[in-house]
Protein backbone atom coordinates (compact mmCIF):
# COMPACT_ATOMS: atom_id res chain seq x y z
CA UNK A 1 0.00 0.00 0.00
CA UNK A 2 1.34 3.41 -0.99
CA UNK A 3 1.26 6.14 1.61
CA UNK A 4 0.43 9.66 0.58
CA UNK A 5 0.39 12.92 2.48
CA UNK A 6 -0.29 15.25 -0.41
CA UNK A 7 -2.19 14.56 -3.57
CA UNK A 8 -2.26 16.94 -6.50
CA UNK A 9 -4.44 16.15 -9.49
CA UNK A 10 -7.13 17.60 -11.68
CA UNK A 11 -10.24 15.81 -10.38
CA UNK A 12 -12.64 13.96 -12.63
CA UNK A 13 -16.32 14.55 -12.00
CA UNK A 14 -19.13 12.03 -12.37
CA UNK A 15 -22.42 13.80 -11.69
CA UNK A 16 -24.34 10.63 -10.80
CA UNK A 17 -25.83 9.69 -7.42
CA UNK A 18 -25.91 6.13 -6.03
CA UNK A 19 -22.98 4.88 -8.13
CA UNK A 20 -23.03 1.19 -7.27
CA UNK A 21 -20.12 -1.24 -7.27
CA UNK A 22 -21.67 -3.07 -10.26
CA UNK A 23 -21.19 0.20 -12.15
CA UNK A 24 -17.64 0.66 -10.87
CA UNK A 25 -16.61 -2.85 -11.92
CA UNK A 26 -19.15 -5.18 -13.56
CA UNK A 27 -19.37 -8.82 -12.56
CA UNK A 28 -17.67 -10.26 -15.64
CA UNK A 29 -14.40 -8.90 -14.25
CA UNK A 30 -14.84 -10.50 -10.82
CA UNK A 31 -13.70 -13.81 -12.21
CA UNK A 32 -10.08 -12.86 -11.65
CA UNK A 33 -8.09 -14.44 -8.85
CA UNK A 34 -5.78 -11.39 -8.68
CA UNK A 35 -6.10 -7.89 -7.28
CA UNK A 36 -4.46 -6.10 -10.18
CA UNK A 37 -5.29 -5.33 -13.80
CA UNK A 38 -8.86 -4.15 -13.20
CA UNK A 39 -8.24 -0.47 -14.09
CA UNK A 40 -8.91 -0.85 -17.80
CA UNK A 41 -12.39 -2.12 -16.97
CA UNK A 42 -13.28 0.56 -14.41
CA UNK A 43 -16.79 1.90 -15.20
CA UNK A 44 -16.76 -0.52 -18.14
CA UNK A 45 -20.42 -0.17 -19.14
CA UNK A 46 -20.24 3.61 -19.35
CA UNK A 47 -16.70 3.78 -20.69
CA UNK A 48 -16.98 1.46 -23.67
CA UNK A 49 -19.65 0.95 -26.31
CA UNK A 50 -21.03 -2.40 -27.46
CA UNK A 51 -18.09 -2.80 -29.86
CA UNK A 52 -15.62 -2.23 -27.03
CA UNK A 53 -14.64 1.25 -28.26
CA UNK A 54 -14.14 4.12 -25.82
CA UNK A 55 -17.19 6.37 -25.43
CA UNK A 56 -15.85 9.83 -26.26
CA UNK A 57 -18.03 11.89 -23.98
CA UNK A 58 -17.37 9.78 -20.87
CA UNK A 59 -15.22 11.91 -18.55
CA UNK A 60 -12.59 9.29 -17.77
CA UNK A 61 -11.93 8.84 -21.50
CA UNK A 62 -11.07 12.53 -21.91
CA UNK A 63 -7.75 14.23 -21.29
CA UNK A 64 -6.73 15.29 -18.66
CA UNK A 65 -9.35 13.30 -16.70
CA UNK A 66 -8.01 10.00 -17.98
CA UNK A 67 -5.09 10.74 -15.65
CA UNK A 68 -7.11 11.98 -12.69
CA UNK A 69 -6.12 10.71 -9.29
CA UNK A 70 -9.22 12.22 -7.67
CA UNK A 71 -12.81 11.34 -8.47
CA UNK A 72 -15.74 13.52 -7.41
CA UNK A 73 -19.15 11.86 -7.51
CA UNK A 74 -22.72 12.10 -6.24
CA UNK A 75 -23.93 10.84 -2.88
CA UNK A 76 -24.06 7.22 -1.70
CA UNK A 77 -21.01 6.26 -3.74
CA UNK A 78 -20.11 2.56 -3.75
CA UNK A 79 -23.48 1.11 -2.78
CA UNK A 80 -24.44 -2.49 -3.44
CA UNK A 81 -22.11 -5.45 -3.58
CA UNK A 82 -19.20 -5.87 -1.13
CA UNK A 83 -16.72 -6.56 -3.96
CA UNK A 84 -13.29 -5.17 -3.07
CA UNK A 85 -12.69 -5.29 -6.82
CA UNK A 86 -14.30 -1.80 -6.84
CA UNK A 87 -11.47 -0.06 -4.93
CA UNK A 88 -8.93 -2.34 -6.69
CA UNK A 89 -10.23 -1.11 -10.06
CA UNK A 90 -10.14 2.56 -8.98
CA UNK A 91 -6.61 2.12 -7.67
CA UNK A 92 -5.42 0.29 -10.77
CA UNK A 93 -6.80 3.15 -12.89
CA UNK A 94 -4.83 5.59 -10.71
CA UNK A 95 -7.56 7.03 -8.51
CA UNK A 96 -6.43 7.25 -4.89
CA UNK A 97 -9.01 9.69 -3.58
CA UNK A 98 -12.79 9.85 -3.94
CA UNK A 99 -14.86 12.84 -2.86
CA UNK A 100 -18.59 12.47 -2.23
CA UNK A 101 -21.16 13.53 0.33
CA UNK A 102 -21.71 9.93 1.48
CA UNK A 103 -20.53 6.36 0.93
CA UNK A 104 -21.94 2.90 1.40
CA UNK A 105 -20.40 1.31 4.52
CA UNK A 106 -18.64 -1.69 2.97
CA UNK A 107 -17.09 0.30 0.12
CA UNK A 108 -15.94 2.94 2.61
CA UNK A 109 -14.04 0.44 4.75
CA UNK A 110 -12.68 -1.36 1.68
CA UNK A 111 -11.07 1.94 0.57
CA UNK A 112 -8.91 2.18 3.68
CA UNK A 113 -7.63 -1.38 3.19
CA UNK A 114 -6.23 -0.27 -0.17
CA UNK A 115 -4.83 3.19 0.46
CA UNK A 116 -7.73 5.06 -1.12
CA UNK A 117 -8.92 8.12 0.78
CA UNK A 118 -12.73 8.54 0.66
CA UNK A 119 -13.38 12.17 1.62
CA UNK A 120 -16.82 13.14 2.87
CA UNK A 121 -17.83 16.65 1.89
CA UNK A 122 -21.12 18.36 2.72
CA UNK A 123 -23.62 18.24 -0.11
CA UNK A 124 -23.49 22.01 -0.56
CA UNK A 125 -19.69 22.17 -0.77
CA UNK A 126 -19.73 19.26 -3.17
CA UNK A 127 -22.16 21.14 -5.39
CA UNK A 128 -19.85 24.20 -5.33
CA UNK A 129 -16.90 22.05 -6.36
CA UNK A 130 -18.97 20.52 -9.08
CA UNK A 131 -20.06 23.84 -10.60
CA UNK A 132 -16.46 25.06 -10.35
CA UNK A 133 -15.30 21.97 -12.22
CA UNK A 134 -17.86 22.43 -14.96
CA UNK A 135 -16.74 26.05 -15.30
CA UNK A 136 -13.04 25.13 -15.41
CA UNK A 137 -13.60 22.29 -17.83
CA UNK A 138 -14.41 24.87 -20.50
CA UNK A 139 -10.85 26.17 -20.32
CA UNK A 140 -8.96 22.91 -20.06
Amino acid at each position, binding site marked *: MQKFNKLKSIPAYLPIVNIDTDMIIPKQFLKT*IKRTGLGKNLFFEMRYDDQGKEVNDFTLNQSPFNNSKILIAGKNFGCGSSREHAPWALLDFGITCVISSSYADIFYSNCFK*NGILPIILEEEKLKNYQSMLIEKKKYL
Partner: protein
Amino acid sequence: MSTTLYDKIWNDHLVDQQDDGTALLFVDRHLVHEVTSPQAFEGLRNSNRKVRHPNLTLAVADHNVPTTDRTKGIADQESKIQVDTLEANCKEFGVQLFGMDDKRQGIVHIIGPEQGFTQPGTVIVCGDSHTATHGAFGSLAFGIGTSEVEHVLATQTLVQKKAKNFRINVNGQLPLGVTSKDVILQIIGKIGTAGGTGSVIEYAGDLIRSLSVEQRMTICNMTIEGGARAGLIAPDEKIFNYLKGKPMSPKGDNWEKALNYWNSLKTDDDASFDQELNLNAGEILPMITWGTSPQDVITIDEKVPNPQSESDEDKKNSIERALKYMGLKPDMAAKDIKIDKVFIGSCTNGRIEDLREAAKILKDKKISSHVSAMVVPGSGLVKEQAEQEGLDQIFVNSGFEWREPGCSMCLAMNADKLKPEERCASTSNRNFEGRQGRGGRTHLVSPGMAAAAAISGNLDDVRKYQN
Protein backbone atom coordinates in the same frame (compact mmCIF):
# COMPACT_ATOMS: atom_id res chain seq x y z
CA MET B 1 -28.45 -0.09 31.22
CA SER B 2 -31.09 -1.14 28.72
CA THR B 3 -29.70 -2.53 25.52
CA THR B 4 -30.88 -3.50 22.07
CA LEU B 5 -30.47 -6.93 20.50
CA TYR B 6 -27.62 -5.50 18.42
CA ASP B 7 -25.92 -4.09 21.55
CA LYS B 8 -26.16 -7.49 23.27
CA ILE B 9 -24.60 -9.46 20.41
CA TRP B 10 -21.95 -6.79 19.96
CA ASN B 11 -21.03 -6.78 23.67
CA ASP B 12 -20.86 -10.58 23.80
CA HIS B 13 -18.31 -10.61 20.96
CA LEU B 14 -16.13 -7.70 21.94
CA VAL B 15 -12.48 -8.75 22.23
CA ASP B 16 -11.08 -5.26 22.58
CA GLN B 17 -12.14 -1.65 22.19
CA GLN B 18 -9.95 1.42 21.59
CA ASP B 19 -10.76 4.92 22.82
CA ASP B 20 -11.68 6.06 19.31
CA GLY B 21 -14.40 3.39 19.13
CA THR B 22 -12.43 0.94 17.01
CA ALA B 23 -13.33 -2.52 18.22
CA LEU B 24 -12.18 -6.06 17.64
CA LEU B 25 -15.04 -8.57 17.33
CA PHE B 26 -14.89 -12.34 17.53
CA VAL B 27 -16.44 -13.99 14.49
CA ASP B 28 -18.38 -17.24 15.14
CA ARG B 29 -19.12 -18.25 11.59
CA HIS B 30 -17.36 -17.46 8.32
CA LEU B 31 -18.95 -18.32 4.97
CA VAL B 32 -16.70 -18.33 1.93
CA HIS B 33 -17.44 -18.35 -1.81
CA GLU B 34 -15.28 -18.45 -4.92
CA VAL B 35 -15.51 -14.82 -6.05
CA THR B 36 -14.29 -12.88 -3.03
CA SER B 37 -11.89 -15.40 -1.49
CA PRO B 38 -9.01 -16.24 -3.89
CA GLN B 39 -7.01 -13.08 -3.08
CA ALA B 40 -7.62 -13.66 0.64
CA PHE B 41 -6.24 -17.21 0.57
CA GLU B 42 -3.33 -15.94 -1.52
CA GLY B 43 -2.64 -13.37 1.20
CA LEU B 44 -2.51 -16.16 3.82
CA ARG B 45 -0.13 -18.13 1.64
CA ASN B 46 2.14 -15.11 1.05
CA SER B 47 2.44 -14.41 4.77
CA ASN B 48 2.71 -18.05 5.72
CA ARG B 49 -0.46 -18.10 7.78
CA LYS B 50 -3.04 -20.79 8.43
CA VAL B 51 -6.80 -20.57 8.74
CA ARG B 52 -7.27 -19.94 12.45
CA HIS B 53 -10.52 -21.90 12.86
CA PRO B 54 -11.28 -24.10 9.84
CA ASN B 55 -14.18 -25.66 11.79
CA LEU B 56 -15.92 -22.24 11.93
CA THR B 57 -15.52 -21.75 8.18
CA LEU B 58 -17.75 -23.17 5.45
CA ALA B 59 -17.16 -22.77 1.72
CA VAL B 60 -19.29 -23.22 -1.37
CA ALA B 61 -19.10 -22.24 -5.04
CA ASP B 62 -22.31 -20.49 -6.07
CA HIS B 63 -21.73 -17.40 -8.25
CA ASN B 64 -20.00 -19.07 -11.22
CA VAL B 65 -21.65 -22.47 -11.34
CA PRO B 66 -23.70 -23.49 -14.38
CA THR B 67 -27.39 -24.13 -13.81
CA THR B 68 -27.64 -26.51 -16.73
CA ASP B 69 -26.21 -30.04 -16.99
CA ARG B 70 -23.17 -30.14 -14.71
CA THR B 71 -21.72 -33.41 -15.82
CA LYS B 72 -19.80 -31.51 -18.51
CA GLY B 73 -18.17 -29.19 -15.96
CA ILE B 74 -17.86 -25.41 -16.39
CA ALA B 75 -17.43 -24.23 -19.99
CA ASP B 76 -16.25 -20.69 -19.19
CA GLN B 77 -12.52 -20.96 -18.46
CA GLU B 78 -12.33 -18.02 -16.04
CA SER B 79 -15.30 -19.29 -14.06
CA LYS B 80 -13.73 -22.73 -13.97
CA ILE B 81 -10.42 -21.35 -12.67
CA GLN B 82 -12.23 -19.52 -9.89
CA VAL B 83 -14.22 -22.58 -8.80
CA ASP B 84 -11.14 -24.82 -9.05
CA THR B 85 -9.14 -22.28 -7.04
CA LEU B 86 -11.70 -22.39 -4.24
CA GLU B 87 -11.52 -26.16 -4.21
CA ALA B 88 -7.71 -26.13 -4.08
CA ASN B 89 -7.66 -23.47 -1.35
CA CYS B 90 -10.16 -25.38 0.81
CA LYS B 91 -8.08 -28.51 0.48
CA GLU B 92 -4.84 -26.72 1.31
CA PHE B 93 -6.26 -24.86 4.32
CA GLY B 94 -8.57 -27.59 5.64
CA VAL B 95 -11.85 -25.76 5.08
CA GLN B 96 -15.07 -27.72 4.52
CA LEU B 97 -16.41 -27.25 0.99
CA PHE B 98 -19.70 -28.24 -0.59
CA GLY B 99 -18.53 -29.06 -4.11
CA MET B 100 -20.54 -28.60 -7.28
CA ASP B 101 -21.78 -32.20 -7.27
CA ASP B 102 -22.72 -32.20 -3.57
CA LYS B 103 -26.49 -31.99 -3.11
CA ARG B 104 -25.92 -29.57 -0.24
CA GLN B 105 -24.35 -27.11 -2.70
CA GLY B 106 -26.28 -23.89 -3.22
CA ILE B 107 -26.27 -20.17 -2.63
CA VAL B 108 -24.07 -19.42 0.38
CA HIS B 109 -26.90 -17.62 2.25
CA ILE B 110 -29.29 -20.49 1.70
CA ILE B 111 -27.00 -23.33 2.73
CA GLY B 112 -25.90 -21.66 6.00
CA PRO B 113 -29.39 -21.78 7.53
CA GLU B 114 -30.16 -25.18 5.94
CA GLN B 115 -27.19 -26.77 7.67
CA GLY B 116 -27.73 -25.07 11.03
CA PHE B 117 -24.39 -23.30 10.50
CA THR B 118 -26.35 -20.07 10.99
CA GLN B 119 -27.37 -19.68 14.64
CA PRO B 120 -28.91 -16.96 16.84
CA GLY B 121 -26.58 -14.65 18.71
CA THR B 122 -23.60 -15.41 16.51
CA VAL B 123 -21.48 -13.00 14.49
CA ILE B 124 -21.52 -14.23 10.89
CA VAL B 125 -19.50 -12.72 8.06
CA CYS B 126 -18.95 -13.49 4.40
CA GLY B 127 -17.35 -11.64 1.51
CA ASP B 128 -20.80 -10.93 0.18
CA SER B 129 -23.17 -8.08 0.94
CA HIS B 130 -26.23 -10.34 1.20
CA THR B 131 -24.82 -11.91 4.35
CA ALA B 132 -27.46 -9.71 5.97
CA THR B 133 -29.86 -12.62 5.23
CA HIS B 134 -28.71 -14.53 8.33
CA GLY B 135 -29.94 -11.71 10.59
CA ALA B 136 -33.36 -13.40 10.34
CA PHE B 137 -32.00 -15.84 12.97
CA GLY B 138 -31.04 -13.07 15.38
CA SER B 139 -27.41 -13.23 14.37
CA LEU B 140 -25.28 -10.20 13.61
CA ALA B 141 -24.47 -10.96 9.99
CA PHE B 142 -22.86 -8.66 7.46
CA GLY B 143 -20.82 -8.54 4.28
CA ILE B 144 -17.11 -7.76 4.27
CA GLY B 145 -14.41 -7.04 1.68
CA THR B 146 -11.71 -9.49 0.62
CA SER B 147 -9.01 -7.91 2.84
CA GLU B 148 -11.36 -8.50 5.75
CA VAL B 149 -12.02 -12.07 4.58
CA GLU B 150 -8.27 -12.61 4.85
CA HIS B 151 -8.22 -11.05 8.32
CA VAL B 152 -11.04 -13.31 9.51
CA LEU B 153 -9.45 -16.41 8.00
CA ALA B 154 -6.19 -15.57 9.78
CA THR B 155 -7.52 -14.44 13.15
CA GLN B 156 -11.27 -15.28 13.42
CA THR B 157 -11.73 -11.64 14.43
CA LEU B 158 -12.67 -8.45 12.63
CA VAL B 159 -11.97 -4.75 13.23
CA GLN B 160 -15.23 -2.82 13.33
CA LYS B 161 -16.85 0.36 14.57
CA LYS B 162 -20.20 0.13 16.24
CA ALA B 163 -23.16 1.08 14.10
CA LYS B 164 -26.26 3.00 15.17
CA ASN B 165 -29.47 1.30 16.25
CA PHE B 166 -32.37 1.67 13.81
CA ARG B 167 -35.68 -0.10 14.45
CA ILE B 168 -38.41 -0.65 11.89
CA ASN B 169 -41.74 -1.74 13.38
CA VAL B 170 -44.24 -3.37 11.06
CA ASN B 171 -47.62 -4.03 12.61
CA GLY B 172 -50.91 -5.34 11.28
CA GLN B 173 -51.64 -7.98 8.68
CA LEU B 174 -50.55 -8.19 5.08
CA PRO B 175 -53.35 -8.14 2.48
CA LEU B 176 -53.80 -11.25 0.33
CA GLY B 177 -51.04 -11.64 -2.27
CA VAL B 178 -48.62 -9.35 -0.43
CA THR B 179 -45.39 -10.94 0.80
CA SER B 180 -42.29 -10.11 2.77
CA LYS B 181 -40.61 -9.14 -0.54
CA ASP B 182 -43.19 -6.38 -0.91
CA VAL B 183 -42.58 -5.33 2.71
CA ILE B 184 -38.84 -4.89 2.20
CA LEU B 185 -39.28 -3.16 -1.19
CA GLN B 186 -41.72 -0.79 0.48
CA ILE B 187 -39.20 -0.14 3.28
CA ILE B 188 -36.35 0.56 0.83
CA GLY B 189 -38.66 2.87 -1.12
CA LYS B 190 -39.34 4.78 2.08
CA ILE B 191 -35.84 5.04 3.56
CA GLY B 192 -33.87 5.08 0.28
CA THR B 193 -30.75 3.12 -0.61
CA ALA B 194 -28.68 5.17 1.84
CA GLY B 195 -31.36 5.33 4.55
CA GLY B 196 -29.71 2.68 6.69
CA THR B 197 -26.09 3.69 6.10
CA GLY B 198 -24.14 3.47 9.35
CA SER B 199 -26.93 1.56 11.09
CA VAL B 200 -27.98 -1.95 11.99
CA ILE B 201 -31.71 -2.34 11.43
CA GLU B 202 -33.82 -4.40 13.82
CA TYR B 203 -37.19 -5.43 12.39
CA ALA B 204 -39.94 -5.73 14.98
CA GLY B 205 -43.70 -5.62 15.35
CA ASP B 206 -46.45 -8.22 15.17
CA LEU B 207 -46.27 -8.60 11.39
CA ILE B 208 -42.57 -9.48 11.57
CA ARG B 209 -43.23 -12.01 14.35
CA SER B 210 -46.01 -13.58 12.29
CA LEU B 211 -43.67 -14.21 9.34
CA SER B 212 -42.13 -17.62 8.70
CA VAL B 213 -38.36 -18.08 9.05
CA GLU B 214 -37.90 -17.98 5.27
CA GLN B 215 -40.01 -14.86 4.85
CA ARG B 216 -37.88 -13.16 7.50
CA MET B 217 -34.76 -14.08 5.52
CA THR B 218 -36.12 -12.20 2.48
CA ILE B 219 -36.51 -9.06 4.58
CA CYS B 220 -33.08 -9.25 6.23
CA ASN B 221 -31.47 -10.17 2.89
CA MET B 222 -32.41 -6.89 1.23
CA THR B 223 -31.47 -4.76 4.24
CA ILE B 224 -28.20 -3.99 2.44
CA GLU B 225 -30.28 -2.44 -0.37
CA GLY B 226 -31.43 0.08 2.22
CA GLY B 227 -27.79 0.86 3.02
CA ALA B 228 -27.61 -0.95 6.37
CA ARG B 229 -25.00 -3.70 6.56
CA ALA B 230 -27.07 -5.87 8.84
CA GLY B 231 -30.73 -6.53 9.58
CA LEU B 232 -31.84 -8.33 12.73
CA ILE B 233 -34.95 -10.06 13.98
CA ALA B 234 -35.16 -11.36 17.56
CA PRO B 235 -35.13 -15.18 17.49
CA ASP B 236 -38.23 -17.04 18.69
CA GLU B 237 -39.78 -20.52 18.74
CA LYS B 238 -40.09 -20.54 14.94
CA ILE B 239 -36.34 -20.10 14.63
CA PHE B 240 -35.58 -22.72 17.30
CA ASN B 241 -37.90 -25.25 15.66
CA TYR B 242 -36.33 -24.56 12.28
CA LEU B 243 -32.82 -25.19 13.63
CA LYS B 244 -33.59 -28.23 15.76
CA GLY B 245 -31.98 -31.33 14.30
CA LYS B 246 -30.13 -29.52 11.51
CA PRO B 247 -26.74 -31.15 10.79
CA MET B 248 -24.65 -28.36 12.37
CA SER B 249 -27.09 -27.29 15.09
CA PRO B 250 -26.10 -27.92 18.73
CA LYS B 251 -27.05 -31.38 20.03
CA GLY B 252 -28.02 -32.83 23.45
CA ASP B 253 -26.95 -30.69 26.43
CA ASN B 254 -25.52 -28.10 24.09
CA TRP B 255 -28.95 -27.63 22.52
CA GLU B 256 -30.45 -26.83 25.96
CA LYS B 257 -27.60 -24.43 26.77
CA ALA B 258 -27.99 -22.79 23.37
CA LEU B 259 -31.75 -22.40 23.87
CA ASN B 260 -31.16 -20.72 27.21
CA TYR B 261 -28.89 -18.17 25.60
CA TRP B 262 -31.02 -17.73 22.49
CA ASN B 263 -34.07 -16.99 24.63
CA SER B 264 -32.22 -14.03 26.17
CA LEU B 265 -31.64 -12.43 22.78
CA LYS B 266 -34.14 -9.61 22.62
CA THR B 267 -34.14 -5.86 22.86
CA ASP B 268 -35.02 -4.57 26.35
CA ASP B 269 -38.44 -2.92 26.55
CA ASP B 270 -37.02 0.47 27.42
CA ALA B 271 -33.98 0.38 25.14
CA SER B 272 -33.62 3.43 22.97
CA PHE B 273 -32.95 3.61 19.23
CA ASP B 274 -31.20 6.30 17.20
CA GLN B 275 -33.95 6.08 14.63
CA GLU B 276 -37.35 4.37 14.35
CA LEU B 277 -39.85 3.86 11.55
CA ASN B 278 -43.40 2.51 11.86
CA LEU B 279 -45.26 0.82 9.04
CA ASN B 280 -48.78 -0.52 8.76
CA ALA B 281 -48.68 -3.89 7.01
CA GLY B 282 -52.31 -3.52 5.95
CA GLU B 283 -51.36 -0.65 3.64
CA ILE B 284 -48.65 -2.53 1.75
CA LEU B 285 -49.51 -3.61 -1.81
CA PRO B 286 -47.72 -5.79 -4.37
CA MET B 287 -44.63 -3.82 -5.40
CA ILE B 288 -42.44 -3.57 -8.47
CA THR B 289 -39.29 -1.59 -9.19
CA TRP B 290 -39.45 0.62 -12.29
CA GLY B 291 -35.87 2.00 -12.30
CA THR B 292 -32.25 1.09 -11.73
CA SER B 293 -32.07 1.34 -7.96
CA PRO B 294 -33.96 -0.81 -5.44
CA GLN B 295 -35.46 2.39 -4.02
CA ASP B 296 -37.28 3.01 -7.33
CA VAL B 297 -40.48 1.28 -6.23
CA ILE B 298 -44.16 1.69 -7.06
CA THR B 299 -47.17 -0.52 -6.45
CA ILE B 300 -48.52 -2.57 -9.34
CA ASP B 301 -51.50 -0.15 -9.53
CA GLU B 302 -49.29 2.91 -9.96
CA LYS B 303 -47.59 4.69 -12.84
CA VAL B 304 -43.91 5.15 -13.63
CA PRO B 305 -42.77 8.59 -12.34
CA ASN B 306 -42.40 11.65 -14.50
CA PRO B 307 -39.12 13.58 -14.09
CA GLN B 308 -40.93 16.82 -14.94
CA SER B 309 -42.85 16.67 -11.68
CA GLU B 310 -39.62 16.40 -9.64
CA SER B 311 -38.18 19.65 -8.31
CA ASP B 312 -34.92 18.27 -6.89
CA GLU B 313 -32.33 18.43 -9.67
CA ASP B 314 -30.43 15.27 -8.60
CA LYS B 315 -33.63 13.25 -8.39
CA LYS B 316 -34.88 14.59 -11.71
CA ASN B 317 -31.61 13.61 -13.42
CA SER B 318 -31.60 10.20 -11.88
CA ILE B 319 -35.23 9.52 -12.92
CA GLU B 320 -34.40 10.59 -16.47
CA ARG B 321 -31.32 8.42 -16.56
CA ALA B 322 -33.20 5.41 -15.16
CA LEU B 323 -36.16 5.77 -17.55
CA LYS B 324 -33.79 6.00 -20.51
CA TYR B 325 -31.87 2.89 -19.42
CA MET B 326 -35.08 1.00 -18.69
CA GLY B 327 -36.70 2.04 -21.97
CA LEU B 328 -39.81 3.34 -20.21
CA LYS B 329 -41.97 6.40 -20.79
CA PRO B 330 -42.93 8.75 -17.95
CA ASP B 331 -46.42 8.15 -16.53
CA MET B 332 -46.89 4.75 -18.14
CA ALA B 333 -48.85 2.25 -16.06
CA ALA B 334 -46.86 -0.50 -14.34
CA LYS B 335 -49.16 -3.11 -15.87
CA ASP B 336 -48.33 -1.87 -19.38
CA ILE B 337 -44.69 -2.91 -18.98
CA LYS B 338 -44.22 -5.91 -21.27
CA ILE B 339 -41.58 -8.44 -20.25
CA ASP B 340 -39.35 -10.93 -22.09
CA LYS B 341 -37.96 -13.03 -19.27
CA VAL B 342 -38.77 -14.22 -15.79
CA PHE B 343 -36.20 -15.29 -13.22
CA ILE B 344 -37.25 -17.02 -10.01
CA GLY B 345 -34.41 -17.70 -7.61
CA SER B 346 -31.54 -15.96 -5.70
CA CYS B 347 -30.65 -15.65 -2.00
CA THR B 348 -33.63 -13.30 -1.71
CA ASN B 349 -36.32 -15.63 -3.07
CA GLY B 350 -34.83 -19.03 -3.91
CA ARG B 351 -36.13 -21.06 -0.96
CA ILE B 352 -38.85 -23.71 -0.87
CA GLU B 353 -41.62 -21.35 0.28
CA ASP B 354 -40.79 -18.97 -2.58
CA LEU B 355 -41.07 -21.81 -5.08
CA ARG B 356 -44.37 -22.93 -3.52
CA GLU B 357 -45.73 -19.39 -3.78
CA ALA B 358 -44.87 -19.15 -7.48
CA ALA B 359 -46.07 -22.70 -8.23
CA LYS B 360 -49.42 -21.97 -6.60
CA ILE B 361 -50.00 -19.18 -9.17
CA LEU B 362 -48.67 -21.23 -12.12
CA LYS B 363 -50.59 -24.45 -11.47
CA ASP B 364 -52.57 -25.49 -14.56
CA LYS B 365 -51.58 -22.30 -16.41
CA LYS B 366 -49.20 -21.58 -19.29
CA ILE B 367 -46.75 -18.73 -19.46
CA SER B 368 -47.18 -16.15 -22.22
CA SER B 369 -45.81 -17.26 -25.60
CA HIS B 370 -43.28 -14.40 -25.84
CA VAL B 371 -41.83 -15.00 -22.35
CA SER B 372 -38.95 -17.29 -21.50
CA ALA B 373 -38.77 -18.18 -17.84
CA MET B 374 -36.59 -20.14 -15.46
CA VAL B 375 -36.53 -21.30 -11.88
CA VAL B 376 -33.17 -21.69 -10.17
CA PRO B 377 -33.61 -23.30 -6.75
CA GLY B 378 -31.41 -21.80 -4.04
CA SER B 379 -29.74 -25.08 -3.17
CA GLY B 380 -29.63 -28.76 -4.02
CA LEU B 381 -31.77 -29.46 -0.95
CA VAL B 382 -34.39 -26.90 -2.00
CA LYS B 383 -34.40 -28.52 -5.46
CA GLU B 384 -34.82 -31.98 -3.97
CA GLN B 385 -37.65 -30.85 -1.69
CA ALA B 386 -39.43 -29.08 -4.56
CA GLU B 387 -39.19 -32.21 -6.71
CA GLN B 388 -40.63 -34.32 -3.90
CA GLU B 389 -43.59 -31.95 -3.76
CA GLY B 390 -43.99 -32.02 -7.55
CA LEU B 391 -43.33 -28.30 -7.92
CA ASP B 392 -40.82 -28.92 -10.70
CA GLN B 393 -43.62 -30.47 -12.77
CA ILE B 394 -45.88 -27.47 -12.23
CA PHE B 395 -43.10 -25.15 -13.40
CA VAL B 396 -42.16 -27.27 -16.40
CA ASN B 397 -45.79 -27.80 -17.44
CA SER B 398 -46.38 -24.06 -17.40
CA GLY B 399 -43.35 -23.44 -19.61
CA PHE B 400 -40.59 -22.65 -17.10
CA GLU B 401 -37.13 -24.19 -17.25
CA TRP B 402 -36.15 -26.10 -14.11
CA ARG B 403 -32.45 -25.53 -13.36
CA GLU B 404 -29.59 -26.56 -11.08
CA PRO B 405 -28.93 -24.40 -7.96
CA GLY B 406 -26.75 -21.27 -7.81
CA CYS B 407 -26.77 -17.46 -7.95
CA SER B 408 -27.46 -17.59 -11.69
CA MET B 409 -29.16 -14.58 -13.27
CA CYS B 410 -29.29 -12.58 -10.06
CA LEU B 411 -25.89 -11.26 -11.08
CA ALA B 412 -25.23 -13.11 -14.33
CA MET B 413 -21.68 -14.28 -13.62
CA ASN B 414 -22.44 -17.64 -15.16
CA ALA B 415 -24.03 -18.23 -18.56
CA ASP B 416 -27.52 -17.07 -17.44
CA LYS B 417 -27.89 -13.46 -18.49
CA LEU B 418 -30.14 -10.94 -20.20
CA LYS B 419 -29.34 -9.64 -23.67
CA PRO B 420 -29.24 -5.87 -24.19
CA GLU B 421 -32.71 -4.32 -23.76
CA GLU B 422 -34.25 -7.59 -22.64
CA ARG B 423 -36.69 -7.00 -19.82
CA CYS B 424 -36.98 -9.34 -16.87
CA ALA B 425 -39.37 -9.75 -13.94
CA SER B 426 -36.93 -11.04 -11.33
CA THR B 427 -37.22 -12.22 -7.75
CA SER B 428 -33.63 -11.13 -7.11
CA ASN B 429 -32.39 -8.14 -5.15
CA ARG B 430 -30.69 -5.63 -7.45
CA ASN B 431 -31.96 -3.80 -10.52
CA PHE B 432 -28.71 -1.93 -11.13
CA GLU B 433 -27.68 -1.08 -14.70
CA GLY B 434 -26.17 -4.17 -16.29
CA ARG B 435 -26.72 -6.32 -13.21
CA GLN B 436 -28.42 -9.18 -15.07
CA GLY B 437 -26.43 -8.65 -18.27
CA ARG B 438 -25.20 -5.65 -20.21
CA GLY B 439 -28.14 -3.44 -21.17
CA GLY B 440 -30.56 -5.82 -19.42
CA ARG B 441 -33.60 -4.34 -17.69
CA THR B 442 -34.65 -5.70 -14.32
CA HIS B 443 -37.91 -5.32 -12.43
CA LEU B 444 -37.71 -6.66 -8.88
CA VAL B 445 -40.82 -8.47 -7.71
CA SER B 446 -42.00 -11.22 -5.34
CA PRO B 447 -42.16 -14.86 -6.55
CA GLY B 448 -45.96 -14.66 -6.93
CA MET B 449 -45.65 -11.45 -8.94
CA ALA B 450 -42.95 -13.05 -11.12
CA ALA B 451 -45.32 -15.95 -11.84
CA ALA B 452 -48.16 -13.54 -12.64
CA ALA B 453 -45.89 -11.60 -15.02
CA ALA B 454 -44.89 -14.83 -16.75
CA ILE B 455 -48.53 -15.74 -17.40
CA SER B 456 -49.66 -12.26 -18.49
CA GLY B 457 -46.52 -11.38 -20.46
CA ASN B 458 -46.39 -8.02 -18.69
CA LEU B 459 -45.99 -6.90 -15.11
CA ASP B 460 -49.27 -7.78 -13.50
CA ASP B 461 -51.15 -8.05 -10.23
CA VAL B 462 -50.65 -11.43 -8.54
CA ARG B 463 -54.05 -11.05 -6.89
CA LYS B 464 -55.67 -11.53 -10.29
CA TYR B 465 -54.48 -15.15 -10.27
CA GLN B 466 -55.31 -15.95 -6.69
CA ASN B 467 -58.30 -18.04 -5.79
